[in-house]
């Protein structure tokens, strides 16, 4: 029930915020803030309680579970389940949710109620994706998060918002439909093999498939997740969508929507189709490495701050893809840590860029310089997150990327070496950002208000989290390790089932 209530709080909170928006914008902001914070607190309580109680001996180590029959005619269940991986991603969702509500506090002035409706419903859809253990429900939530996101970009975005929103929607919708075909093909293949119609994740594990069919079905899933991730060369929607979206939209996109792609690979592609994924792994890993370098180089070439940050996502998520397809313990741990840290650090960077844009009304790096003089606190925060993004030891991103490289080294030394160059390249764009924006003489004579209390409240916890993950990540490892081991076990069992 607690899982359902988390989603329902967001859905109902959104409706209330919409209703309140007609009378008072402030009420609508507060309602949203309270709704998301409540979810965060609930998630935190679940986490604290779960610490230590993890039972490794059990087959399915769900921390919480809810399983209702939904559409019996199709064998569809309303099945939500929580393990360590989902829990961490949920915590990230609610943290960035609070961040987005706070970040839009002064930025959004039109149709405030409707804005918060969309924002909370995106978050609800994302939470649904992280919790769904029925493929039909998963697809339902997967599509559900798109529509509000589309509205967030198309209504409250910047100059080319309509173009960017349509591009985003069409990319994700096309890939989503391919996944739907794959889901259905899998559903019928399972029926031919066992005589049972089911979308249930745990039942579908270990379905014997002929290698040929498995590859096609796997590709259907993979394309949907790769577009979201985004993997080179399917990333072209990302810079546009990130750039045109309002701050909250960018935070949710970069921090959460991209992670649903990584989550899908971890949860579905690898355990359900291990053999097919293994044959496909070299291609995916090469594309991942290309994405790492390509993203870093393009980020360096941008003069629009938001585009710069957007391209860094392509680079960082390339690491995640690399780690997932390496599929060993070290690389997977690294991938999960990178997912979390990238969500926090990129989310924070988008908040800072949004804060700059609100003050300067531009995102052009060329029109900024010497901002440190007038906004030292904002500059300091910018420097911190830029350093985190380039992988400075002691901060979370470093831990993740380092572990990925360690894991990948066991698979391929060449790819490791090339990917390591990507870390080097990241120093260029991170330093370019700091240098062009904050250092140098204040030629334009900007005199701006520094980071306010509200913005400080957003940024401070993010700094703390990155430091924590950089210095003492063990509690997080403890949370997701059992879940990852289960996933690896499933993959192994599925392999054996197919060999038989």
């Amino acid at each position, binding site marked *: 029930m607690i899982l359902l209530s988390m989603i329902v709080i967001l859905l109902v909170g959104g409706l209330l915020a919409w209703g309140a928006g007609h009378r008072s914008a402030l009420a609508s902001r507060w309602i949203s803030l309270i709704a998301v914070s409540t979810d965060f607190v609930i998630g935190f309580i679940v986490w604290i309680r779960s610490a230590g109680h993890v039972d490794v001996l059990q087959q399915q180590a769900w921390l919480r579970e809810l399983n209702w029959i*939904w*559409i*019996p*005619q*199709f064998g569809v269940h309303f099945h939500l389940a929580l393990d360590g991986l989902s829990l961490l991603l949920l915590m990230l969702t609610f943290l960035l949710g609070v961040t987005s509500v706070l970040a839009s506090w002064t930025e959004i002035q*039109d*149709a405030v109620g409707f804005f918060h409706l969309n924002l909370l419903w995106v978050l609800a859809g994302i939470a649904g994706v992280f919790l769904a253990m029925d493929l039909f429900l998963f*697809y*339902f939530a997967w*599509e*559900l998060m*798109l*529509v509000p996101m*589309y*509205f967030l970009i*198309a*209504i409250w975005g910047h100059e080319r918002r*309509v173009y960017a*929103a*349509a591009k985003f*929607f*069409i990319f994700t*919708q*096309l890939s989503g*439909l*391919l996944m*739907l*075909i794959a889901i*259905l*093909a899998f*559903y*019928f293949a399972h029926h031919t093999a066992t005589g049972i119609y089911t979308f249930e994740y745990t039942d579908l594990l270990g379905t014997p498939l002929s290698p040929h069919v498995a590859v096609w079905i796997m590709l259907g899933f993979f394309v949907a997740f790769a577009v979201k991730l985004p993997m080179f060369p399917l990333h072209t929607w990302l810079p546009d969508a990130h750039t045109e979206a309002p701050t909250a939209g960018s935070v949710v996109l970069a921090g959460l929507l991209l992670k649903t792609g990584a989550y899908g690979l971890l949860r579905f592609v690898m355990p359900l189709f291990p053999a097919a994924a293994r044959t496909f792994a070299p291609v995916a890993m090469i594309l991942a490495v290309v994405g790492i370098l390509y993203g870093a180089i393009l980020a360096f070439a941008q003069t629009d701050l938001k585009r710069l940050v957007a391209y860094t996502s392509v680079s960082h998520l390339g690491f995640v893809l690399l780690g997932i397809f390496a599929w060993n313990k070290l690389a997977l741990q690294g991938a999960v840590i990178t997912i979390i840290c990238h969500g926090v650090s990129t989310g924070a960077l988008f908040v800072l860029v949004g804060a700059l844009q609100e003050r300067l009304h531009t995102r052009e790096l060329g029109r900024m310089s010497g901002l440190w003089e007038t906004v030292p606190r904002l500059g300091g925060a910018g420097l911190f997150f830029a350093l985190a993004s380039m992988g400075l030891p002691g901060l979370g991103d470093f831990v993740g990327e380092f572990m990925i490289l360690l894991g990948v080294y066991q698979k391929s030394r060449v790819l490791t070496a090339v990917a390591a160059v990507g870390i080097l390249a990241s120093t260029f764009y991170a330093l370019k950002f700091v240098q062009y924006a904050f250092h140098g003489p204040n030629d334009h004579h900007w005199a701006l208000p520094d980071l306010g209390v509200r913005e400080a409240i957003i940024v401070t916890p993010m700094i703390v989290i990155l430091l924590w993950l950089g210095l003492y990540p063990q509690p997080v490892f403890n949370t997701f390790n059992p879940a990852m081991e289960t996933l690896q076990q499933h993959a192994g069992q599925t392999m054996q089932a197919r060999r038989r």
Partner: protein
Amino acid sequence: MNGSDLFSLLPLVLIAGTSILVMLAIATWRKHWLTLCMTLVGIAAAFGSLWLVAPLAPRRVTPLLILDHYALFYFGLITAATFAIAILCYGYLQRHTETREELYVLLLVAALGSMVLVASSHFVSFFLGLEILSVALYAMSAYLHTRSRPLEAGIKYLILAGSSSAFLLFGMALIYAQLGTMDLFRLATLLPDAQNSPLVLGGLAFIVTGIGFKLGVVPFHLWAPDVYEGAPAPVTAFLATVSKGAIFALLLRYFYSSGAQHFRPVFVLFAIIAIASMLIGNLLALLQNNIKRILAYSSIAHMGYLIVAFEASSATASEAVAFYLVAYFITTIGAFGVVTVLSEEERDADTLEDYAGLFWRRPMLAGIFTLMLLSLAGIPVTAGFLAKFYVIAAGASAGIWALILILVISSVIGLFYYLRVVITMFAQVREEKLHAEPHAMGGNYVLVGLAILLVWLGVYPGPLLNVVRRVLPM
């Protein structure tokens, strides 16, 4: 024919009787609201009578009609849709014209024709039903006869529907010449042996041509956009839903019972029609600036999706078609309902500019229209999503991957124009045009009801699926 035979015709009798009563009432006492009330009561009674008749089904009444669960399900769908459209007509006619009452007679007659179609088991009742429906539709399309557009639409529909009926008749004649029967059940037993006879194949081709015209599928679609644009908005809603739905139900019954869709040439013919309808319908919709034309091309594409399910030819496929038609009816009536409610006195609200910034002026209406468009695009939470899911599932179970892939690609193309309309409604309009908002007169309630139904079916389809499961042709 005995008493219970007659009793099982009750829905048809009620609709026919209502139309006569309404006609007499108009002749003596012209009152718009009274006419509407009589119409609604009659339709509601016919809908209610379905439960009385259901225990008797399936039952063959004369060689002409078969009243099985399949027919009763579509009776329900047709009467419910006619009910909603009648209410939409009220506000529309109140604003647009002085001669209002006759439209209801035509509406009832058209509904009667559609019901005969879905229950027909003989070429004669097939043709009779079709003509009853078509003749009523000619008059309905040209109902606002003082304007040029509706007249053009009426004439165009008259000529093309007339020639398509001729094709149909010729096809029936060819099959009769070869097999010597017009009874559906006799045909079903004879057809499989005669599938290589050129006369039969030729006859089937002509019948497909005739039906294709009525469904408005490519390459027989040329009338659709013009007629949709010209006809009054509620009439267009009827044309797009009840008339097409009834013909599709009949197509499914005739082909499934005879197994004709398994013949190689017929399968290929339908595959080509489906692919062409999906792609051309969606591509041409991209070029339109008129809402009614956009919806016309979108309905061409939707007929293509339905044919994909038809091609799957299994029990799942027939369920998918039934579910899809329900979703399509709700959505299309909802969409044209919004057009109806927004229409001003001189013209229908059919250009994109009429919808610019609608969300900020009338959030409720814009929200409903958005829901309808998202349902047409097949986005979750709406019935349209489950309908598309069902169709893809039917296709996947039959393994017709090429058709499914084209369905997916074309529905992504479709997204472009649905989103274009949606985003127009949310655009911020600087100079606020201050024109008096027309009063909807009950239309709003219909729209809210449809929106609730749409979401309900999208989230909790179980009950409808149970009904649909029992609805099988034969």
